[in-house]
């Protein structure tokens, strides 16, 4: 009877690889020749100073942006770029930096919305709510309830999310992403604007998702403590270029990373 000392380093096969991707908006170069990979079962962090291109990177991965050059390999399939629906059907789910929930709907309905892609019955069957449609709804509801239980949000099951505090809304959004049963979960600043307790809760949930469901996770986060504790490997971006890609400990010591965050030393006399 012993608590596991540390998570075993993920050494799975490559789930998604980004190869020499460049993206620009007019004259602004958001990403310049970025390559990295995400292995099955790991928690991968993407960090960098403001404007480094982190969110652009996620948007490329789930097909929201079309890069001008480069390749993306997902589950062995090579593409020039992803398409959002292909990403979603292929098992990529995400949460957003600024919440994107249906504010007037309850927690339950928001999470149920995450099951939309898994619904097999047509509109009319669902309207009748009979036979296969009913059986399917029961099954989806069961999955949703498991997620509610998992995220410990039973008490707010029937509360419209617009009335919930920010930290809980973030949790509901995670729930909706989980409802897709994704292979790859993209989290864009899951801890932004949270207090310490909420951050600790969220960290716990991220680890649990990774361990219990075996979901691969890529996250963007500003809180360095969280990143270093959670992730197996870290990519560091600065002005759209990759400046480091290593384990958290190595990244912490990396000169380029320190310079990107703290700036150049300007002849400080000792």
């Amino acid at each position: 009877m012993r608590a596991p000392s540390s998570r075993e380093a993920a050494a799975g096969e490559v789930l998604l690889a980004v190869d020499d991707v460049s993206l620009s908006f007019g004259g602004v170069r958001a990403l310049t020749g970025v390559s990295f990979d995400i292995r099955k079962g790991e928690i991968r962090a993407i960090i960098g100073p403001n404007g480094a291109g982190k969110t652009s990177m996620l948007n490329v991965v789930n097909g929201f942006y079309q890069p001008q050059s480069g390749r993306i390999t997902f589950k062995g399939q090579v593409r020039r770029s992803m398409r959002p629906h292909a990403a979603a059907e292929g098992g990529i789910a995400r949460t957003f930096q600024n919440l994107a929930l249906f504010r007037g709907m309850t927690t339950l309905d928001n999470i149920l919305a995450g099951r939309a892609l898994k619904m097999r019955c047509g509109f009319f069957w669902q309207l009748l709510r009979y036979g296969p449609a009913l059986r399917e709804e029961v099954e989806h509801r069961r999955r949703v309830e498991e997620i509610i239980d998992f995220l410990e949000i039973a008490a707010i099951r029937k509360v419209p999310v617009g009335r919930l505090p920010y930290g809980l809304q973030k949790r509901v959004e995670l729930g909706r992403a989980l409802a897709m049963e994704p292979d790859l979960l993209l989290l864009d600043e899951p801890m932004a604007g949270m207090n310490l307790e909420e951050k600790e809760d969220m960290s716990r949930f991220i680890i649990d998702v990774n361990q219990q469901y075996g979901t691969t996770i890529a996250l963007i986060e500003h809180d360095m403590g969280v990143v270093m504790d959670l992730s197996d490997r870290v990519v560091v971006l600065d002005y759209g270029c990759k400046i480091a890609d290593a384990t958290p400990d190595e990244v912490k010591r990396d000169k380029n990373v320190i310079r990107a965050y703290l700036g150049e030393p300007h002849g400080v006399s000792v």
Partner: protein
Amino acid sequence: MPSIDPGLDTLPKLLVHNAAARGARPAMRHKDLGIWQTWTWAQMLEEVRAFSVGLAELGLKRGDKFTIVGSNRPRLYWAMCAGQALGAVPVPVYADAVAEEMAYVLAHAEVTLGVVEDQEQVDKLIAVSDRLPHLRQVVYDELRGLKDYDHSRLIAFQDVQSIGRKKLANDPECLRQWQASVAAGKGSDLSVILYTSGTTGRSKGVMLTYANTIISARNANAFDRLDENEEVIAYLPLAWVGDYIFSYVQSYAAGYCVNCPETAETVVQDRREIGTTYAFAPPRVYENLLTLTMVRMADASALKRKAFDFFIAFAGRWGEKILDGEKVPLGARLLYGIGNVLVYGPLKNQFGLTRIRIGYTAGEAIGPEIFRFYRSIGMNLKQLYGQTEASVYITAQPDGEIHPEAVGKASPDVEVKISDTGEVMFRSPGVFSGYYKDPDKTAEVLTPDGWVHTGDAGFFDPKTGQLRIIDRAKDVGRLKDGTVFAPKYIENKLKFYPNIREVVAIGAGRDFVCTMVNIDLTAVGSWAERNNVVYASYQELAGDPRVYEMIARHIDEVNRSLAEEEVMAGAQVRRFLILHKELDPDDGELTRTQKLRRGHINDRYAPLVEAFYNGSTEAQIATEVTFEDGHKGVIAARVVIRDMKPYPAPPAKMERAA
């Protein structure tokens, strides 16, 4: 002494009996994945038996102690009965106890096996496992987060059950052996050890036999005519005698259904869905419900607020009379009916008390105003007085004989007397057999002829014939000038105000009375929001001069009411302060059942107490706090002390005194 049928003198025997007599009736429900799951008595017997046989395979045997840690879940209740069927003794522990406290109790009880809820509790046991040499195995209910743990001494609840089921299926002898083991249990056997969260010193393990608890439960069921149709909700700590008797023994004795809520936060919703008929709660639960309502009413529209105020005031005048079946004018009855449709009914529905037949409050004195409020809107709320050492019941109020300041008449089969020193004593079939491994403490409390010292000061009110409790006997003191000082009496008066959560009154052996106040963050926070008072933390809000002004007004009102009472006029509050942190069981300031630990508080806040009596207007204080995960930190603050003006005692009574 009343006898007990030897066929039904243990809880496992009662379970077997219920499965045969009312096998298809619901025994337990649990809201899981949003749906109420029900087990009938017959199904519950099967679950308990499978787990019990599984435990036997793991090596649990007669006389062993095993612990139960977690929230109210069917499996944890089953585990108690499953162990008892083997002759083992459950030792339930408070789930919110920090690892340190838990280690003491588990080591003292020499537990060999633990049945716990989840990873959190498993972690606690791992943290202290080097001090628990007897602990061999831990069974957990919830797998989450435990997958990668070393499972050499860890096993899932359902795995234990499947061991049991396999054994029962393969070995025809097994069922007979299990039945024989149940039959071997006797009423006089030790059935449970309940550690009391003592207000002083280390907790003591109260040993109760099957006969203790079953006779008490039977009497209580008969007293309130409880039968198999009751629905109760189990939400109080498993380790508390109240929950043990209410949610376990009384249910087994009467055959009624126990409902386990989904989570601690959903209890109110869950209670609404079930519609409980019988309830038991410490005053705090009723206080919280009322505070929450008052806060929400303050935000309601003017019309709703007016209607609420009018009908609540009206109910205050007539509601209790209607409830007690007294003569009430027709007009008042009609208007009360309208009030019931508009206000009382919806309110009770919100509280989940629509179907309630009987509600009890116990554990601490309840504010008379709170008590009357619930009765006035038509809830038959009664008081009882009990202790772990008595298997709960010492006194209870019969229907229609309700006095908010009293706790009732002696329960069936219980004798109550007041000792020469003014202490309440009792003797009953529920009297415990001693503190586990502590004969000295037992001898202090239990006399050779079976009387138990309760440690409470009280008297029988000549008007009503009911027992009244003043305070803990050792807490009743005197001021320097000889005025009687009953701290709890003053504290309870103040705690009725929704803005005040906790009060500590100080004054024994001093010149005058002072109080330390904890504000209620919900109530005061809502007030702050409405009045544009900005605050970042409890500490900041507590120090706000406007909050001080508000609390000063409350204390002033209490002083005025104290001045009207002959005995208490001299014990008016002269100075007060608002504490910079909330009193917390994790810091040892409250017990797990939320009672003040005065000695400890006096030590911790010694600089504040000193400042009260040396005339300072503020004081510096730094207190160590323990966070939920066991880490410690320090909170420092400068606390302001306010002076209060006492009211003169009524002149007529002054003359008599002189």
